[in-house]
């Protein structure tokens, strides 16, 4: 059992950091192991926002000489950014092992998909380095602990943006660590992130098929398959909604997942409708969550909500 939540402001922005924190805190009982946020801010021109980590939280507690290793790994990441023609416009504090950069590249150098992928691969080649997210709008934060703790740790309240998805995790298929926490960035696609509640029963077969096609997996968590699957379909030319519809047939098991791009929020539910999802939709706001109590955490007044049906795919634009 995990909890997932999503929200999108239509035609406006809001304090999505506080709103998503509130929704995920209301779902805390569905999963105490880790919490993750994918927040979509307002893009600053061509600047790229990158969040990455160079160690696990567990390593920081027990690793021998880990602080020196973290410094060395970070310095190597910085060097590789510079080598690819990038400039670190701003480095904002996150944690001892996770970092938040705003990057600027010389015009045109990061416009192509191949360039973007090569850059991501180059950075992740540094020992212990994993890019949590990279894009013009997406900021992905995930760590161990409940929503309140993670949100405070990373300074998320007050984050202005258009939309967000989030996840509270009860680990059932893999370890309690950051790399198994959601959301998953649909590497290497700019601004695509996924959260999932359920179990995928064709995980290993599908993973091997995608790996043979050159896709990379960073964890053994079945939920990562959805992000990689969608990335693969988009790479093959599918529109997001088409890829999601195709996933209903291709993914086996029980699942409800949310996906967000730079300007869209989407939801998909398996044909058994075995995992919950409650939806609230108005002219200026859409909220979805595993339980209505999450939506109620930001709407105290009476609202109309309903359950999307089996096999349903819905996509909203901001």
């Amino acid at each position, binding site marked *: 059992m995990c909890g997932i939540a999503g929200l999108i402001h239509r035609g406006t922005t809001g304090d999505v950091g506080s709103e998503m924190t509130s929704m995920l805190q209301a779902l805390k009982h569905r999963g105490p192991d880790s919490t993750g946020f994918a927040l979509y801010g307002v893009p600053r021109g061509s600047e790229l926002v990158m969040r990455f980590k160079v160690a696990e939280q567990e390593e920081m507690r027990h690793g021998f000489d880990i602080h020196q290793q973290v410094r060395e790994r970070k310095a190597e990441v910085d060097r590789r950014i510079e080598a690819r023609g990038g400039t670190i416009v701003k480095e904002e504090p996150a944690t001892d092992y996770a970092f938040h950069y705003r990057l600027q590249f010389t015009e045109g150098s990061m416009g192509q998909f191949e360039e973007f992928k090569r850059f991501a691969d180059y950075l992740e080649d540094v020992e212990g380095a994993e890019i949590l997210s990279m894009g013009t709008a997406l900021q992905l934060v995930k760590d161990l602990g409940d929503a309140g703790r993670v949100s405070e740790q990373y300074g998320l309240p007050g984050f202005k943006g258009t939309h967000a998805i989030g996840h509270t995790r009860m680990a059932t298929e893999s370890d309690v660590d950051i790399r198994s926490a959601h959301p998953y960035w649909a590497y290497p696609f700019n601004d695509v992130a996924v959260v999932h509640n359920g179990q995928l029963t064709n995980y290993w077969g599908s993973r091997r098929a995608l790996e043979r096609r050159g896709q990379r997996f960073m964890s053994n968590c079945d939920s990562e398959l959805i992000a990689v699957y969608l990335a693969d379909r988009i790479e093959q030319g599918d529109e997001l909604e088409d890829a999601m519809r195709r996933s209903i047939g291709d993914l086996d098991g029980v699942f409800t997942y949310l996906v967000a791009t730079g300007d869209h929020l989407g939801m998909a539910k398996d044909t*058994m409708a075995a995992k919950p999802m409650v939806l609230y939709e108005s002219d200026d706001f859409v909220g979805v969550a595993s339980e209505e109590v999450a939506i109620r955490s930001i709407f105290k007044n009476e609202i109309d*909500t309903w359950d999307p049906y089996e096999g349903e795919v819905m996509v909203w634009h901001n």
Partner: protein
Amino acid sequence: MAQLKDDSAHKSYEMGLHTEQLTGRSQQRFFSAEESDNFTYPQAFVVDFDKTAEIDAAELEGPAVNLRIRELMGEGYGHIVVKNPLAKHSLGVGILNRLKLDFEGSLGYFGCGLVDGPNIRISGRVGWSCAENMMAGTIVIEKNAGSTFGAAIRGGDLICKGDVGSRTGIDQKGGTIIVGGRTGAFSGFMMQRGRMIILGDAGINLGDSMYDGTIYVGGKIAGLGVDAVPGEINDVEAAWLEKKLATFGLEAPSGVKNLQKIVSGKQLWNYDNLEPAEKKIVL
């Protein structure tokens, strides 16, 4: 050990709703419907329906709300209004008493489960598994409901005037479920007794593996499940349907005679007596 009774003179037989007593060790009935109507619990509170109390649930946890309901019943209040339930889980559960209970707002998961006797009205929506294992009374939801609505209910009337999710009435063992709108996939899955009336559309695998009971559908059926087959509505049933729907201010979209009736084909009944190869032939 109670003995199996001859139910041939039972009211439901006159209505054509049960044609056969299920067999097997687990199918003994210890109470008839008539007996259970008069059954009250020794610890039941004596309440006055003209005595009304309010609870503001905004700042209370679910168990505290339920405890307060019980305290008020103990003080003789027969009408309790709960304001600001805010979709909290497991509200109004385990009430084994006559009581008029109004929720002004929406409930979360497992609302009003395990109740035996109260008349409950919910002005908003309910989440998953509303009225699970309900024994008797009425529950009326004015808006929508989540999945597994009325799971394993034994008796009473459970009404949702809006749409409901999937697996409505899963493992239903009695009573009546009425849905004003549509219902999702696998509704009536493993239904064993009772009646379900869906005035809108029904999703795939309707009545899958149902043992007994009856499902009526006013809209389109996306697909029937294994061993669910069409039946014919007789005049006694039609009169009952008309009356039941009118009780809750509802009516069939094209008249009760045009509802589609779904019953068990009873090909899965004798599974204990069949060899695996024989089962394949049956299916």
